[in-house]
Structures are given as structure tokens and as C-alpha cells.
């Protein structure tokens, strides 16, 4: 029943806000704040949707995404990339590596909830 979302985000306040929003929308939310062991957490949690921050301590979000797409068991996992960068190049790069959705900080609350809902349906 409950859709599971894993949140990889090092900023505690941002993570807290997203957790609040998604929990309210009926998601089961897990979160993690470090890049270096993020892959282990993803494989353990096996979420329906992944929210991935680009700038993480330890390891870059793009790097994690690349490994994830290379893994057959995780290649189809919908991933929402959160970035502080808003230029088209950044969007293109994210799409190329395999992001399902790209969202720039700061984002609207309704926006991120709607995006995750849509991603979970497909």
C-alpha cells in the first residue's frame, strides 16, 4: 500500500521539510545525509522513488546516479534529482545520466509532491 521514498539529502532542514510534505501525502519516507554510503542504503531500502541531492558530502549525486543506472536491478528506479543549479546544461546532464525528473532548489511544495506522485505511477 504505502509508496516508499528514499531521500538522500545532507541539509537537515531541507530533508525535514520534504519528509513532512511526503509523509502528509501518504509516503513512507526514509532519509540519508551522506553520499559515500548512499548506494548501500538504496540497495537495502529498495524504495519506489528516489530523491537525490546533487551536492552531497562524500560522493556526488550524479556519481551515485551513474552507478545506479549501471546496476540492472536499479536501472528502472525513478529518480528525482534535486539541484541548486538551474541552468539548462545541468538539466541536460542530469537527463543524460538517467534522472527521471530534475528539480531546482528552492522548489514549491506542491510541485515536488506532484512530481513524486507522477513518478510513482509510471
Amino acid at each position, binding site marked *: 500500500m504505502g509508496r516508499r521514498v528514499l531521500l538522500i539529502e*545532507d541539509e537537515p*532542514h*531541507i530533508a525535514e521539510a520534504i519528509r*513532512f510534505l511526503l509523509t502528509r501525502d501518504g509516503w513512507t519516507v526514509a532519509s540519508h*545525509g551522506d553520499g559515500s554510503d548512499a548506494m548501500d542504503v538504496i540497495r537495502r531500502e529498495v524504495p519506489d522513488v528516489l530523491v537525490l541531492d546533487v551536492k552531497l558530502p562524500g560522493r556526488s549525486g550524479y556519481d551515485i546516479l551513474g552507478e545506479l543506472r549501471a546496476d540492472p536491478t536499479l536501472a528502472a528506479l525513478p529518480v528525482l534529482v534535486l539541484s*541548486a543549479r538551474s541552468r539548462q546544461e545541468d538539466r541536460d546532464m542530469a537527463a543524460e545520466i538517467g534522472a527521471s525528473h530534475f528539480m531546482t532548489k*528552492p522548489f*514549491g511544495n506542491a510541485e515536488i509532491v506532484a512530481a513524486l506522485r507522477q513518478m510513482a505511477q509510471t
Partner: protein
Amino acid sequence: MVPFNILVAVCLAYVCLLFLVAFAAERRAERGRGGWLRSPIVYTLSLSIYCTAWTFYGAVGYAARSGLEFLTIYLGPTLVLIGWWVLLRKLVRIGRSQRVTSIADLISSRYGKSNLIGVIVTVIAVVAATPYIALQLQSVTLSFGVFASGTPEGWALPDQGATALWVAGGLTLFTILFGTRNLDADERHHGVVMAIALEAVVKLVALVAVGIFVVWGVADGWADVAARTRASPIADWPLQPGRWIGLTFVSAAAILTLPRMFQVMVVENSDERHLATASWAFPLYLMLMSLFVVPIAVVGLSTLPEGANPDLFVLTLPLAEGQGKLAMLAFLGGFSSATSMVIVAAIALATMVSNHVVTPLWLSLREGGARAPGDVRGLVLMSRRVSIAAILALGYIYYSLSGGSAALASIGLIAFVGVAQILPAMLGGIFWRGATGVGAAVGLTTGFLVWLYSLYLPSFGPDGLLSAELVATGPWGIGWLRPRALFGVDGLDPLLHALFWSLSLNAGSFIAVSLVTFPGPVERMQGLAFVNAFDHDPGARGWSRGGAEAEDLLIMAQGILGAEEAQGFFQSEAEAQGKAGFLPDTTPDFIEKLERRLAGAVGAATAHAMIAQFAVGAAVSAQDLMAVASEAQQILEYSTQLEAKSEELARTARQLQEANEKLKDLSVQKDAFLSQISHELRTPMTSIRAFSEILGDPDLPAEMQKKYASVIHDETIRLTRLLDDLLDLSVLENRKVQLNVKVANLHDLIGRAVQAASSTRAQRSFAIHRDMPSEHIPVITDADRLVQVFINLVSNARKYCDADRPELTISARRRGGRIIVDFVDNGSGIPKEAQRLIFEKFARLTDTAQAGGAGLGLAICREIMANLGGTIAYLPGQGGAAFRVSVPVRLEAQLEPEAAE
């Protein structure tokens, strides 16, 4: 008896003959067919201008007055010519290789082309020659008088002075016409040389004829002459060894230093080997000239009435015997002696006066110097002519002042001693490399002044320039300054006295000053060229202007102009001469054109030197080489400049490239920085936006509302602090900080920092160790900024020290003009690879949650320390994280803060 008018007519005819000979010789020389003109016999005969009217007439008078002493005048030159290998050969070699134009030119050229020395030598020569020229005027005038009166005593013409004036005027005209018809670059006068050679024959023939007539016509052969000699006072004259030695020496010096002798011997010399012939032929000539002197004197004394002037025996004896034609021949001999001497002396002196006095003076007076070549040529010719007239005028004035009374021989000897003053500078110049121009100038001047004072001025007699009283008691009664008894040397023959003092003071000062002065570069080079004149064999340059030479010139020209251009030039020149092929006749005109062409490529001096290598008899002088060197120097400088320019260009390009790289780097850094800032700004804004939207939900529980509001508050503060830090950093980096410098106690500053850092986040136990007493160091700096750095370090330790019981040790001490403060904690420290990054902007090592800052703290610290003239550095190997702050005890307000590392 010869009528006076016929005498004048014969004189004019003789002069015309001389002109004709001179003209013909000049024409031959111009056509390049010197042939016999340049024979050693002509050269030897031209040397006979040594025998002037003084010798022709005066030797007899000398013998009548002083016995055989007159022979010394022949002995000196004989010795010099016999020993030609030693001295004359070298002089001639130098004269030719240096293209010397006069003795003044030789001396000035040796001493670094010093015009001062040229002027000194010119002055000495002119002053010494003036009485000598007066002597010639006197002898010609006297001989005219003898003819006019027909008496052995002499004078019957109405005005002696007027005759002398006519003679002087005539000689001036004669000399100008002879000597300055045109201007030869090498100062050679083939026509003049030919004419004086003819005159040499005339005077020898005349004297020998008179001698033969006297011995066999008047007396009864040698036996009778010998008998008369024993009976005459000549036999009673004692030999004075001092005078003999002195006079032989001074006449030997004179043949080397008399300007006219230098002119014929060195300047007019066309072949060095002529000296070998002259070395025996000229002494032979002198011997023949002196052969009949004693017989004429003895016979004259015994046959002519008491009181007859012995200086005129050569004329009066034939006249008295009614031999008009012989007397006429004798007169022509005397006339020849006088004219040849005056002509050559005037030419030589005029060359010196015009080259060393008039031309330099005129050129320096005229701004901008000569404008066209014709300019100088006209000037030189004019100045020569004026100089000749002036020199003869001086001679005439001397003649008038001295009253024409002094015995001929004594005037000649005064002149000899005068020009002998040039000898030390000349000999020193060609044999001693250490001789310097200053030494030569001092020696010449000293000798000249002593000569003037002790011999020349007193020669005017008691009514002359020096009063009888001065001569007797010395100036101002100073005994040792008496002109005829210098330094108390009394009782010496006046001539010997003057010779001794003038030459010894001259040579002494010359040597002494030379030893203490140093020659200039040109002087050193010239000294070398003079002293080692024989190091270069001029025979190797003996090219003749033939077809072979044109080939050589073409090869040389190709090397300089390139094959195509050189061949084109030669071909067109050959065509212009009506010849086929590449080899034109090497006419002077062609060579001149070629030289101009080459000059365009390599410079005038170099071109000249190159052409000279191939031209007949022309040698490359040191001056030429200097000019070549200077041209080469200019070319070198030019190419060095070019090289420097291209090097500079390369350097500029490199700098531009470096600047470009730097700009690229900066651009990348700026992008990264902006991206960082963007990230750092967006992060709190993301939280603020999310939570403020969440707060819009009316169903939110009150405690959640409160919590989220406080998050928004914290993030806003974080945002503000970030902006503050960025602005602070920007100001610090641009060194535009307004520093508030004042005296403070370091202890208070550390105290303030510890307190400020401890006031926030006191959740963790954190121990700070300080050594309070050692902290009491006064410091003059911006205290608030320094405290800011301290706060940063203390709070960093509080935040990041990962020890179980975190501790921070702060220690301070003074080292020299600086204060060192160390902050060492007991954590695990900063990884080595990160140590060099920590002072960069946004170099946050741990996660944001813990840091709570944007990673600008240490970057700001680094900038602050740079502004305070201090440094902040990470101290590796201290166990935990360790930072060292170094700050000057006194911050100089104007001091440019040193760059932080």
C-alpha cells in the same frame, strides 16, 4: 759685369723653366706614368733642399769664421741617412701606412689624433721656420745687391728693404702657384719634387763650377790652396769637441724634424726602397757640396779685400775675377737653394697650419660643419694659400726686425734647435709604446718655451724683445733664470746651453709625464701601429690596376652586393667603357663608383678600406680600421636592438599568454565561486520556502508551527551571515579594509575571543588551556580583526575537534618583531591532502549540519591576516589540528600588507 735687368730677366726665365718642368711632371703623374719621376735619384735630389742658401753661401762664411765646424751641418744628416735602416725606414713606413701629411700630422696621429699636439707642433715649426725663411730672403736680397753694386762689400741698390719685399712677394706667388694648384689627397706634389730636383742639380753644378774655378782659375791647384789654408786663420781655429758633438746632433735631429725635410723625405716618398739609394747618394751629394767650401773661403780671404762679406765669397770671387757668367751661375745656384727651401717649407707649413689650425677652427666656428665636399676643398685651398702668404710675411717681418745683420749660419742653427724640440715626441712615439699624448704635449711645450727664452728671443739682440739687462742679470734679478745661464750653468756656449736645457727638460718632462699618465684607446692603438710599424708587410698589397684586379674587385663586390647586382653593375660599367663582358677597366672613376656602391651596403669607411686592399699603394690606416670598427659596432648594436626587440616581443607574448591563462583560471574560479554562492544561497532559501508554505497549512499543530518558524529564523540568520561573510571577504581581498589600528594587550584579545566563541553552542564540554602570563604582549594592530581570527579558530576547534574530551591549547610568544599565537587541539587533525585547501573559499570538509557555515571562515582569516601584515598557517604534525597566527607587533600604517601564503 752683368746688368741688373738681365739678372732679373734670367731669374724670371729660370722660374719659367721650373714651372715648365713642374707642369710636365704633374701631367705625367696624372696620366699614371710616373716612371722616372719616381726614381730614387729624383728622391735623393729632392732631399737636397736640406742645403739652403745658408749652405750655399753660408758654409763658406762659416768656414771663414769658424774653420771646419761647418762640416757638422753635413755630418748629422749623413749619419742619419747611413743609419736609415734604424730610423728613416720606420718613419717612411709609418708615414705611408698612416697617410701622414706633415710632421704635425705624424705626431698628432701617434698621440691619439690629438689636435692640440698638432697645433703645438705647428706652432713650433712655424716659429722656428720664420728666421730660416728670413735667412733665404736675406741671401737672395744680398746676392741681388752684390750684382747691382759689383763690389764685394755689397749694397748699392737704393732700397734693400724694397728688394726683400719684392723677393718675398715673388716667392709667395711662386709657392702658391706651385704648391696649391690642386689638392691631392695624399699631399704629394710631383711637380714640385721634380722642380726642386732640377734646382738641386743647378746648385751643385754652380758650387762645383765656382770651386773648380777658384782652385784652378784663381789659385794654382790643390797645392796652392793647401799652402794658403795653412797661412789663413782657418788653420788656427781650434776644434771644440762640445760644439762638434752638439752641432752634429742638432743637425741630425733637424733632418728628421724640419717640416720641409719631412715633406720630401716621408710625405713625398713613393717607394721605401728609395731610401737605400739615398743613404749613399745623399751623403755623396753633401760631400760634393762641401768639397770646395774651404778652398773658396781660403782663396776669398786671401784675395778679396779686407771686410768683404765671407757669406758672399761664392758670388764675389767670380765677379772680382770678371767671370760674369760664372757669377750668374753661382747666383742661380744660390737662388735655387733659397727658392727650393722656401717653396717646400711654405708648402709643408701651410699644410700644417691649414690642417691643424685653420680648418678645425673654421669648421668649429661654422655651425653644422661642412655641407658639401666642394665646401671643404675650397676652404682648404684658400687656407693653404693664405697660410703660405702669412708664413712668408712672417719671414719678411723677421728679416726687417733683425735688420738683416746676423750671420747666416747662426740663424740657421737657432731654427735647428727649435725644430729639434719635436725629436723626443717623435722618437718616443715610434719606439716607445708607453709614450702618451699628455707627456708629448708637456715635453713639446716645455722644450719650446725654454728654446724661446734661452735662444730665440735673445737672438734679436739687445734691442729685441729681451732687454740687455734681463739677459745679464735674469728676470727680477733672479740669477739662475738668466736666459744664457739657466740654473746657474754659466760659461757654456749659448747654443749648446740652449740645446742642452731645452732638449733635456723636454725629454725629461715627456718621459716623466708619460710614465704617470695613461693613453686613451685610440692612442694605445696608434702607439701599437707606430711602434710595430713593420709587423705588416706592405709588399703584399702591391696590386697593379690591370684585368686581374677587376676580377678580384668583382669577386669582392659579389660577396657584398650579391652576385646578380655586382655582375649587373660591372657589366653596365664595362658597357659604358665600350667593353664586352663583366670586366671594365679599373679606372679611378670606376673604382670611385664601386666604392660608393659598396659604401651603400657596408658603410663608407669599410668600403674604402676594402677598395684600398686592391688599389695601388694605398694602405688601410688605423683610422680607417677604427671607422670600420665603429660601423661594425653600429651594425652590431642595431642587430642587438633587433634581437632585444624580438626577445621583448616573445616575452610580451608569453606574458599575454600567462595573463590569458590566468584570466581563464579566474573565469573558471569565478564560475565555480558563483556556483558555490548560488548553492549556499539556495540551500537556506529552499528550507525557508518549504517551511513557509508548510506554515500556510491551517491544520498544522501549534508545536510544529513553532518549530518550523524557528527553522525559518535560523536559516534566515544563516543567509544573512553568508552575505556578511561574502562582503567581508570581498573587501578584505581587495585590501580596501579600513583598519582601526590601536594599542592592545594580546591577553585581552585572546580573552575576548575565547569568551565570544564559548557563548554559543555550549552543549559540549570543551577545555581551553592558556598560559596567561606569557600572553601579556602589547600589540599595535586592528584588535577587532585579530579577535575575529581568534574567534574563528576557537570555534572551529569547538566544532570540529573529534576527541572524546576536546581540548584546545593556546600559546603565545614574541619572536623578533612578531607575535606568534598557536591554537592546537587534541583531535585527529586535518588530513594531509586537505591541509592546503582549508584556507580556500567554501572549503568545508565536514557536512553542513555540523559546520553551520558556508566554509568561508578560514578564507576570511587568511585575508584578515594579510591585511594585518601577518600570516595564518596550518601546523602539521601537532597531534590535533594546529593553526599558527603570526602578526607584527606594530602594524605600519603605510606598510603594504604582505601576501598571505
